[in-house]
């Protein structure tokens, strides 16, 4: 009987394709928008991800997220180093500074000042040059995307193609000379500013004069010591905020979730996809059932039980649901793959597949319910009504 159900479904090509299209569209929209949302939210803490070495981030207690810099006094570094269980603690400067390009234009850049001695906190991958080149005079390392886009050298005459910033090129950061000694690859950040690495002491020179300039203290826990325990100890001993990397990511993520319109905007898009998908699939499935009511009535008259008819409709719904889900998720994945070299934030994680599967299942169940109700209440005597 299930084969009959499928033949009935696929026999009406127009409605069959319409159903699959509706569900594919819904799955595509839900998956694509959720992936972009996830990609965007991942970018909010991508910088924390890139710094894999420290176990704990120490900062001003008022800091709400990674880019919310509330500088500390340099002496806080020594207080943290004095906490029992700290294997090492290094300073990190992070700040938005103005860079003057060779053509005279200015560009806001995200400057990271690494501990002069250890260079802990450097980029996860070097494309050109070496991290240790930062020890050279006026040295900076620029991320590849920033070098190729916002920091690229524009032709003096209008038009023409911009040339990516290269090793050996010179910038001015806050009127200080900065020489590119390397090109790195970093994860894209939420603000998409070019990322410039330099030493902590050089960053102090680049930054405007202030009493406090230390952004974070990066801490490694001693072997065998639980990071959460150590973070708690640092908080108690110094009065500063101390988070494990995961806690700091969560803090940043929560800030963007609670204080920006991003979740609502993407939520609306996902909900629209869901509603439109439900409307298209529901109406098409209902029309399909209505047009086949005579045949369902015939089957009922000939001895098919309501239970079997219910299963037949569920099989039909399941098949279009699976096809729509597969095609929609496949199209979203293809979209993500094709856009992988663009600035688009797209991150398709397994949880999104479950979300899309849940959404499509719900659409299919809602659509099928209307049809099931109609067929269950169908009087077999309808078959003699012409």
């Amino acid at each position: 009987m299930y084969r009959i159900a499928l033949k009935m479904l696929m026999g009406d090509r127009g409605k069959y394709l319409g159903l699959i299209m509706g569900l594919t569209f819904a799955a595509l929209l839900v998956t694509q928008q959720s992936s972009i949302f996830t990609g965007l939210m991942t970018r909010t803490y991508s910088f924390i991800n890139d710094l894999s070495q420290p176990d704990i981030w120490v900062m001003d207690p008022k800091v709400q997220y990674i880019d919310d810099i509330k500088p500390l006094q340099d002496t806080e570094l020594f207080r943290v180093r004095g906490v029992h269980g700290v294997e090492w603690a290094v300073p990190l400067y992070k700040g938005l500074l103005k860079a003057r390009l060779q053509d005279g234009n200015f560009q806001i850049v995200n400057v990271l000042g690494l501990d002069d001695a250890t260079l802990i906190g450097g980029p996860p991958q070097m494309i050109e040059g070496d991290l240790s080149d930062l020890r050279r005079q006026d040295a900076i390392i620029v991320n590849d995307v920033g070098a190729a886009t916002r920091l690229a050298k524009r032709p003096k005459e209008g038009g023409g193609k911009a040339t990516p910033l290269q090793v050996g090129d010179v910038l001015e950061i806050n009127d200080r000379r900065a020489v590119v000694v390397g090109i790195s690859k970093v994860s894209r950040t939420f603000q998409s500013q070019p990322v410039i690495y330099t030493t902590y002491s050089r960053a102090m020179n680049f930054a405007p004069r202030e009493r406090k300039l230390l952004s974070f203290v990066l801490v490694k826990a001693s072997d065998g010591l639980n990071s959460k325990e150590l973070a708690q100890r640092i908080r108690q001993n110094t009065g500063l905020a101390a988070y494990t990397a995961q806690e700091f990511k969560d803090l940043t993520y929560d800030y963007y979730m609670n204080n920006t319109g991003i979740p609502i905007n993407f939520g609306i898009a996902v909900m629209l996809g869901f509603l439109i998908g439900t409307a298209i699939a529901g109406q098409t499935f209902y029309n399909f059932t209505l047009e086949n009511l005579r045949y369902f009535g015939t089957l009922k008259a000939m001895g098919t039980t309501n239970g079997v008819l219910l299963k037949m409709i569920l099989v039909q719904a399941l098949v279009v649901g699976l096809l729509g889900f597969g095609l929609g998720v496949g199209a979203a994945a293809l979209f993500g793959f094709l856009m992988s070299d663009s600035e688009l934030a797209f991150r398709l994680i397994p949880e999104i597949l479950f979300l899309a599967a849940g959404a499509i299942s719900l659409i299919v169940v809602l659509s099928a319910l209307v049809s099931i109700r109609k067929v269950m209440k169908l009087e077999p005597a309808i078959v003699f009504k012409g």
Partner: protein
Amino acid sequence: MGPDGNAVYLRGVTKTYVSGPSRVPALRGIDLDVPAGELLMLVGPSGCGKTTLISVVAGILDHDEGDSLVFGNDLRAMSQGQRTAFRGTNIGFVFQAYNLIPSLTAGENVAVPLLILKHSRKDALTRSREVLEAVGLGEKVSALPTALSGGQQQRVAIARALVHDPRLVVCDEPTSALDADTGRMVMEVLRRTALSENRALIIVTHDNRIFNFADRIVRMDDGRIILVEPQVATP
């Protein structure tokens, strides 16, 4: 078998359709016996209750009062599930509009009653081919209904009604959508293949061209049987 060996035994059967305040009596006390081996035609003007009567007999509509036994079984006393199972085993249906599922081949359409009875697909299709051959459509097993003429579609429908060897076949206007020759051919097939001493046929029809195929003709009007005409079938 029912009382006195009748396939169908009806006494004082009534049925009234109720829709809001309006009440439309469709059957006003029907008494009727149909013995096995008989081809009975129900005739009469539109709205006289013919279709309601075969719906009651076929167990797809509940009557209000009276006794209705089919092969001795009181369908009204059965649960919904038991009645559905009874129909599946004992009743064959032929419809005016054929009601063949358009996406299934003729062979698959004919096999449906056997699949409902949980026969294997292979067995059902084998039996379906045999019955299609019996109605002269052995070469059309793989044809879709849209590729068949009206007469051929009705013969497929007859094959579907007979494939599970039911004891009662009910037909609603089986020839009204067909021209005279085709209608006659369909009736010949129906009478030749469907009628046996163990099986009764009840045909609702307006088509006086086929009256001579009946063993007995029952005329209805306004929910009542007004005349029973014994007739010797002369197809």
